Structures are given as structure tokens and as C-alpha cells.
């Protein structure tokens, strides 16, 4: 491996500091892939490589519609004294209808969450059964994500030449996924306590009383305490979720360079090639292994300038840089 690496470098008289191990990645049958190849590939804005299954696309659609409905019916109730609240409520047809819609939205969200759990558990089970399961391709956070974040910040301020090689889900996606999971759990639990205060007051003190010593939590005041907590958490968590959604998720997904005006992945389930290589390089390597067409495309692209599988020795001192690459469609 080391020898082929040496020979591969020969035709490219690149600056000394680029000769770090990470710049070229060797893939069998394809060749040496430079880290900044994403600048020279052709992408379809609608997406090239499968990222989400149809289940996930349906779940995302159901989830964001139910979330927006819940937020727009719940916020005017919480902020009932501000001027716009009655207008929003009258848009929904009065407070009683708005409450009904809020409950329907909540049920939709819970069902979607169940559906999602079922999908990922079933999918994982199938993958384990086929022995295809790879922990690195899941949403489970690893220590590498922290290093990736530090690496990425270094790149953004100019201390690193390239972005880290990341898996299918990068650090911010994992963070957001955990945040959404936690938020849905809290909102569902607190919302159920607000919807059925009498049942919550009956069940919780009994359950908690068995776990905690009675001196720690006053048995009498626990129902009241939990209701207060639910009131606080339901509103605060919803506002937090809405702010993160509006000021971060939307901008991050649709308004950053390269993704404007719309990233179609949430509808098509596909990611563009350059995005995959830039932010999810290790997943792209998996794609090369799994998709023959993609392997063919990348081989053709690399062969143009002699970076393909080294059957013969490349000629001496062939002066060219990556920017000379033509774009192959």
C-alpha cells in the first residue's frame, strides 16, 4: 500500500505540505481520490446519491407539518395576552377548534415518532441479520464527532486545509437528532400531563413514591410539583425547538452556500455528489463500494488525469493540478 501511494504522488508535483496521509484516499478499482475532488465533480441539484429512505422522507414531512401546526396553535395560547394571539386563534376557527387541532397535531407527532422508532429498529434488525450493520453509519455519537467539530472549526478559521472526513451523519446532524428526540420526549410527556392532569396526579405520585423515599419528595406536593414542571417544560421546550428550527435548521439546510434556495434532500431523499464528498466523505467511500455506476463515474473522472488504478507507471513530471480536471457528466 505504501509503495503504491508513493508512485501515485509522482505525476502530481504538489506542495510539500499536501503530502499528508489524508489527502489521497485509495479505493480499489477506482484509484487515488484527492480530498478536494468535490470541487471538480458534477452534481444534480435534485440529488445524486441515496441518503434517506422513503420512510424517513414521509416521517420528516409528517413531523415538520405536525410541529408547525402544534407551534402555531400552541404559541398563541401561551402568549394569549399579545396582540397577534386572537388573530391566529380566529384563523383556526376559535379557541376550541384550535385546541382540537393542537391535540390532532400531537397525536400525529406521537404516531410519527412511533413509526420512526419502528423503522430504525426494523432497519437495524435487518442490517444485523444480513451482517451489514455498521455503527459508524448510524446517528449514535462517537468521540470522533468531537474531533471533527474541532477540525472543522480550525478549517473555518483557516488553520486546516480541508474539512474532516465525516460519516453519513456529521456532528451537527447527530446533535440535532438527539435534540429532536429529547424534545419530542419532553413535549409528549409534559403535554400528556397537561392534557390529563387528573390521571397524571393519580399515577405519578404512586409511581414516584415507590422509587424515591417519601421524605425526599413530599408525596402531597408531588402532583402539584410535576404539573408546574410540565407547564414550564412544555412551553420552554417548544419555544426552544421553534427558535432552533427557525434560526438554525432552516438556514443551515437551505440558505448556506451551495444549498440555496432549497436542498431537495428532504423530498427526494437524495444528496448531491459534491455535498456527499465534502461533508460525508467516508459515506461516499461506502457509496463507491455499493454503487457500481458511481464507481464507474469516479474511475472515469480520475482516469482523465491519470489517477486511476495504477496498471502502468505514470509518466515523469506531468505538470498539472486538480483545477485542470474537466467535469465529466
Amino acid at each position, binding site marked *: 500500500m505504501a509503495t503504491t501511494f508513493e508512485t501515485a504522488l509522482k505525476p502530481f508535483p*504538489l*506542495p510539500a*505540505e499536501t503530502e499528508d496521509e489524508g489527502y489521497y484516499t485509495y479505493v480499489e478499482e477506482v484509484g487515488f481520490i484527492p480530498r*478536494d475532488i468535490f*470541487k*471538480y*465533480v*458534477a*452534481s*444534480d441539484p435534485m440529488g445524486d446519491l441515496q441518503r434517506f429512505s422513503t420512510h424517513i422522507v414521509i416521517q420528516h414531512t409528517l413531523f415538520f407539518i405536525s410541529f408547525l401546526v402544534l407551534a402555531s396553535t400552541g404559541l398563541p*395560547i*401561551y402568549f*394569549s395576552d399579545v396582540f397577534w394571539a*386572537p388573530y391566529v*386563534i380566529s384563523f383556526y376557527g*376559535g*379557541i*376550541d377548534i384550535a*385546541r382540537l387541532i393542537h391535540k390532532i397535531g400531537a397525536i400525529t407527532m406521537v404516531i410519527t415518532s412511533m413509526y420512526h422508532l419502528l423503522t430504525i429498529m426494523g432497519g437495524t434488525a435487518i442490517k444485523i441479520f444480513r451482517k451489514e450493520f455498521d455503527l459508524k453509519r448510524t446517528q449514535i455519537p462517537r468521540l470522533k464527532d468531537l474531533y471533527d467539530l474541532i477540525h*472543522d*472549526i480550525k478549517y*473555518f*478559521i*483557516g488553520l486546516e*486545509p480541508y474539512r474532516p472526513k465525516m460519516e453519513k451523519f456529521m456532528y*451537527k446532524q447527530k446533535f440535532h437528532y438527539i*435534540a429532536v428526540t429529547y424534545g419530542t420526549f419532553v413535549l409528549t410527556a409534559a403535554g400528556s400531563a397537561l392534557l390529563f*392532569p*387528573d390521571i397524571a*396526579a*393519580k399515577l405519578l405520585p404512586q409511581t414516584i413514591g415507590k422509587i424515591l423515599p417519601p421524605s425526599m419528595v413530599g408525596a402531597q*406536593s*408531588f*402532583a*402539584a*410539583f410535576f*404539573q*408546574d*414542571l410540565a*407547564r*414550564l*417544560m412544555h412551553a*420552554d421546550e417548544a*419555544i*426552544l425547538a421553534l*427558535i*432552533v428550527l427557525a*434560526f*438554525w435548521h432552516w*438556514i*443551515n439546510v437551505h440558505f*448556506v*452556500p*451551495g444549498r*440555496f*434556495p432549497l436542498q431537495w434532500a428532504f423530498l427526494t431523499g437524495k444528496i*448531491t455528489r459534491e455535498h456527499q464528498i465534502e461533508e460525508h466523505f467516508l459515506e461516499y467511500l461506502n457509496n463507491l463500494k455499493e454503487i457500481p455506476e458511481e464507481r464507474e463515474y469516479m474511475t472515469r473522472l480520475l482516469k482523465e488525469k491519470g489517477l486511476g488504478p495504477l496498471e502502468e507507471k505514470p509518466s515523469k513530471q506531468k505538470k498539472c*493540478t486538480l483545477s485542470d480536471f474537466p*467535469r465529466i*457528466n
Partner: protein
Amino acid sequence: MKISNRRIIFWLLWIGISAQLFSVSFAKAADKENCLMCHKYRSNARIDETGKKRNFHVNEKLYNRSVHRNISCRDCHTYITKIPHDPVTQKVNCANQCHIRPPFAQEKFSHKKIIDLYNESAHGVKPDDPQVLKDALPNCKFCHLNPLYTKISEKRVAYKETLARCYNCHPESGVIMAYKHITHRLRKRTSRSSRKIVKLCTKCHGDNVLMKKLNVSKKALRAVDTYNRSVHGKLVRLGSQKAANCINCHASSALHDINKRDNKKATINKDNIMQVCRQCHKNADQMFINIAVHPEAVHSGNPIIKLVSISLGLGMYGSVLALVGLLLLETLGRRKDGARLLLKRGTIWYGKQKSKSPKNK
């Protein structure tokens, strides 16, 4: 002579409008003693000894539509014995018997029963109350103003058909009154919306200066604020008829028996409050009644709640600022590297790079 179409339409319209106009006949008020002879004049007013302007005009149209339209003036203003009468010094006593006898009742009608209940309640004037309290306590008219009793338009189901059966035995005028009175209350829980009830109670209980003068407890002083913070208050403010308003909890079906919480008769007394909650929350038990109906602000309550609130706030601002900061940093870094906003001709890395990356030195 040929009659033009326009003329026919004109006459038809004229007949229609006049029929409409004259068919509307207002119910005549029971003004047997002709008090309106003087009181119908708008200028029937004077400035009294204290310099206050007083108006004695009675608007007949308005009075004819009020609930008291069938009661003659002297049924309430009993102290008037001759015409022209002396200057009025007394106030009307709503507990008076009036000359109307309700169907199936032996006695003449009177509000005495409810007034007795009211006088026993927290709002009733007790002989040993201080003068400040006596002045502040509301009388009948404080809440029951005539404008509130004006007719509320409502959808009637088979109104005429139902009434027609009543006429078989009963005289028409009495039936209409009784029917309207009862069915109106049946269709709406009260004649006032929840929002109006809260507004009415807030008139005094939301007036902190007055409440401080009356030396009410700390909880009572903040009652309006805490109610508005509760989900009942929020829903009522947005127009809900299902959520609890003030009198749903603080009074029984008699509505006037509002008592302080240490009074055994009070609906909010410890022994009775569970029944009050069970009006809506069917499974309410001994635990449930501890839940704060008038929740205090988060920062003045339970220390754990306070801690959770602060940490949630910090988490909110912290995460949002950090995420947005990272987003800006990422955008700037990628822009510097040459990423363009729009994907054109299959790439976002077109055109000149703004600055060379360290690779291409």
C-alpha cells in the same frame, strides 16, 4: 296608460318597506301610572346640592327591551306616593315584591331569596364591617346593569312550532316571556360570556390600590394576575366557553354564594374543592387538588422549578447562539474557500476562488 316596470318595482318596494316599518311593534311598557309623561323628556335633569349632574330621563325604547319591561315603575320605586313626587332620597331595594306573580307560584315575584344568599356571602355588607369595606362592596346594580340584559341574538330551533303548542292552554304573552327566559339560560351557561365575567370581577379584584386599602390577603391580591397566567385564564381570554371562569369555581349554581376559603360554605373550602374540580376533571382526587389553579410566576415558586427554568433559559440562549455562531463561521469559511450560493451547471465551486487555500500556495 301603460305602467312602466320601474314604477311597479318602486311601489312594491314602497309597500314592502312600509310593511316592515309598521309591523315592528314594540312591546308596551307597563307604564300604567304614566310616569313617562315627565320622564320621557331628555332634558329632565338637574344639578343637585352637591354639584353633581343628574339625569332622570327614561329611554322608553331601551326600557321596553329590558327584562323589567313588564314591571311598573312604582313596583321598585315604592317610596313614591304622589305625583309630582318629592325629591328621591332612598335607593331601590331589589328584594321588594313586585306585582307580577309567576305561573304556578302563590307568592308575588321577588329577588329576596338570592339577595339573602348574597348578603351572607363575602360580598354582602355585614353590620360590623369597616366603612371602607362597606363602600367598596358591590350592590346588585354593580353587576346587573341593564345593558348586559339586552337581547342576545341566538339561533332558535323550531321556536314557533314549540310555542304554538303552549298557546293551547296558556295566554300568549306570559308564555313568550317564560319561554325566552328559560331557553336562553338553557342554551348558554350564563347570559354573560366567560370573558365578560372575568372582566367584571377584575373591575374590583384587579384594582390593586383598592384591594390594598381593604387589607386582602397576599394570595387574593395577586388572584387576577395568577388566574390570567393559568391555562383557564388564557383560554378564557381567547374566548373559550369551556374553560373555567371565576364563578365556575368560586360559586355554586346559585352564583351569588361567593365565600372566603376558610368559610365552610365556600366552594373553594378544602372539603368542597374536590367537587368543584370534578365538574370538569372527572378523575380529580386528593392529589389533584394540590395543583396550583392560580400559578405563581416561575421565579417565586418551587426552587427546583426555578433552577430548571434558569437552566432551560441558559440552554436555550447558549445553544441557539452557539449553533448560529457555528453556522456563520461555517458559511464564512466555505465562502472563503470558494463555495457559491447557488448550484449552477452541476457545481457550486465555479468562478474564481476568493482566496487561495493553503494547498495551492
